[in-house]
């Protein structure tokens, strides 16, 4: 059918006038997440682009409470907010830790792991723009191999692979872990709503293209997110209790070569044929691994 029309909740809890750049994927991700969660939501925000997008004192871009906190403390601060609400008898409000990839896979990782280990009843969302964008495009543990950043210049691009934060979170056996991106808003909203309905720790990894940091045209922000999924650079899947994997996208017939994804982005412009081939092989390996995980049968009783 042609009319793959998205029907999203009408509510808008992010206001126009925010400070995100033209075509900011992170801003759009927040807009969708709040559509899914509604008014009874608290956002805990460590240092990241969103600290700025949310507006300078005394303004706020969001129509829900926001707690600004230190770079490494998203998960623990959210745990504290959750505890305070519980004491007040408010079990309805969703507490969201909303952090960048640097704040998640690098500096915030111990705090995140602690909260996951304690199975805190929070929703942790990492919006991943694949570098420290707020401070001027420095590499993070989530920057892809070979990508250009200001600290991994063309002559010396990043040598390491992207840290697999989803696998790390699955290893904590938390109730729900999922990936999502802005090109698939219906999928994203469904996952947020599902996370909201579950007790305990939930982790959502959202790929959020950054036009200035990725060196793409702002109008291509959605397209690049779609290509990331179709090229299997960023497959969409969910994991229940750290073991039951479900693949949502791409379908076999949608799969495209990774080159389609790389070629639109200035941050990969310097890649030679060898690097491109190596990336393609890495994608194939990750895909094969994901297929194995999806096919893996979870033991009927978890015993956890």
């Amino acid at each position, binding site marked *: 059918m*042609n009319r793959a029309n998205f029907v999203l909740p009408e509510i808008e809890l992010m*206001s*126009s006038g*925010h400070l995100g750049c033209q*075509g900011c994927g992170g*801003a759009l991700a927040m807009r969708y997440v709040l559509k899914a969660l509604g008014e009874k939501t608290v956002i805990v925000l460590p240092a990241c682009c969103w600290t700025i997008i949310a507006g300078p*004192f005394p*303004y706020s871009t969001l129509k829900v409470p926001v707690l600004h906190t230190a770079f490494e403390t998203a998960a623990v601060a959210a745990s504290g907010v959750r505890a305070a609400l519980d004491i007040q008898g408010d079990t309805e409000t969703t507490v969201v830790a909303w952090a960048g990839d640097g704040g998640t896979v690098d500096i915030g990782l111990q705090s995140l792991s602690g909260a996951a280990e304690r199975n805190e009843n929070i929703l942790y969302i990492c919006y991943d723009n694949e570098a420290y964008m707020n401070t001027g495009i420095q590499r993070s543990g989530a920057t892809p191999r070979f990508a250009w950043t200001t600290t991994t210049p063309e002559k010396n691009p990043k040598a390491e692979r992207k840290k697999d934060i989803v696998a790390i979170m699955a290893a904590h056996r938390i109730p729900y872990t999922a990936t999502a991106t802005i090109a698939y808003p219906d999928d994203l909203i469904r996952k947020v709503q599902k996370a909201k309905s579950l007790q305990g720790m939930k982790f959502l990894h959202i790929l959020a293209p950054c036009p200035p940091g990725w060196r793409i045209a702002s*109008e291509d*922000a959605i397209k690049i997110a779609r290509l990331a999924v179709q090229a299997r650079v960023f497959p969409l899947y969910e994991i229940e209790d750290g073991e039951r994997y479900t693949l949502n996208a791409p379908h076999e017939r949608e799969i495209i070569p990774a080159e389609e994804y790389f070629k639109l982005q200035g941050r990969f412009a310097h890649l030679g044929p060898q690097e491109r081939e190596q990336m393609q092989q890495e994608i194939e390996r990750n895909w094969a691994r994901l297929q194995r995980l999806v096919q893996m049968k979870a033991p009927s009783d978890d015993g956890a």
Partner: protein
Amino acid sequence: MGRAITFRSVAEMPPLAISLDDISHNKTGSWRYLRPVYRNKIPPCRAGCPAGNDIPRWLALVAEGRLTEAWKTIRENNPFPGITGRVCAHPCEAYCNRKEFDEPIAIAALERHVADEAFALHDEPPSGERRREKIAIVGSGPAGLSCAYFLAKQNYPVTIYEAESQPGGMLRLGIPSYRLPRDVIDKEIDDIVRLGVEIKTGYRVGRDIDLERLWASYDALFIATGAYRSRPLGIPGEELPGVLAGLDVLKAINTGRKISLGERVLVIGGGNTAMDAARTALRLGARVTVIYRRTRAEMPAIPEEIAQAEAEGVEFLFLAAPQKIERVHGRLRVHLIRMQLGEPDKSGRRRPVPLPNSEFVLEADALLKAIGEDPDLDFLAEELETSEGIVIHNERGRLSRAGIFLGGDARTGPSTVVEAIADGKAASKAIQRYLRSPSRTASALLPERFAPEKIKLNTSYFAHQARVPVLELPPEERQHGFAEVKAPLWLEDAIVEAQRCFSCGVCNACDNCRVFCPDVAISRVNGLYHVNLEYCKGCGICAAECPRGCIDLIEEGR
């Protein structure tokens, strides 16, 4: 809300760094250097339709099962959806953007479906007062009827003079009922009569009534007498019994006269008349061979008809032409010669030239000439000049006397139903312009065509899906009767097929632009979209993600 806050002293500040307002005072529209502008475009299918059929608009209605509204929408530009849905060569489909994606939309089959479903519906007669100026139309083919329809809708009193005993022109006389059932013609003509149009049959202008009389009694005339004079082969033996004009045979059969052609029939020509003459002869029990002097690729007939004729068992002999006909023992001996293709002629097709020493002979009971027809405009003699049978008309369709207009096959030579409809529509406009200011000389009649526009589609939102097949009566069952060959669509199939339409360049309120705006700058009111330019940063996402190219990005002035 939306104010800039200034603190004049520390005392005015809140005790905690807590927000006091949203950020809507920050008018991010000032960042913008590209501005999104909603602008619907003319889709290629519509530009490809001579009548300017607003295809995506009514397909959207079919997709929702709103067939009555779809019928009314088609009839804004075409009074004959049941007819064109069956016999139009549907140039629209050749332009359909979907053909690059998988297969074009089955526009014609859907048009027929809409008309079939509306068989019991009729137009409301126009409200308001009848106008004083009276118009006479000569000829009740699709051109004359279309002109009458559009004038009647504007409250003009219209009278049509028709030479034959029934209206319809080639629809009835030329096109056989296995392609166009008679009740469909009757219904769609009746719809026009119900608008108050009077059709006087049995009046041949120039014989039963002359043009000067009409001119004296009416304020404007439209001549749409078609092209009926069959071109002669120009070879010896043409006058022999058994050598007939294909069109005369069709006219006879289509008006219910019984004729017999014998067992073996040759048809000379490659156009619609040749195909229908051959298929009709086949249905009368003959073995039929069509002889054409070029190759299949150059045949002017509608390709679908060629395929149907072939499926029914009509044989084809390409690159051959008759040179002489004799009658021996009650049968025809037709002397032919092989042809080969030489240099391109005026029409751009390669000119056939005889291959020396390649003569051969075929025997037959009848030979049907179908190499084309010319308009017969002798009754108009003073009004125009002709050159090689083609009418030279003044001022783009208006004849030398102001107030007399010419259209349809009579103007263009043998053409198509939809071109005739377009001519009739254009004539109705030219006549209205003339009646408003008779002194104006330049009343254009040539149909106004929509120019196709560049449309950037984003096909990520479309799924591949095969075109609905149009079923046909098995060839064995077709051979001995005149039952309609093409089957109708089921309602479910019609809806699914209509949903395949991309709605190129025509916003269908899919909501993508609003969904993907990172700045919450797009709103929708009653299905119409609006960009809030106070906040739009000009990222261009809305334009890029519109599946159907309805948003342009224009540079902001400095």
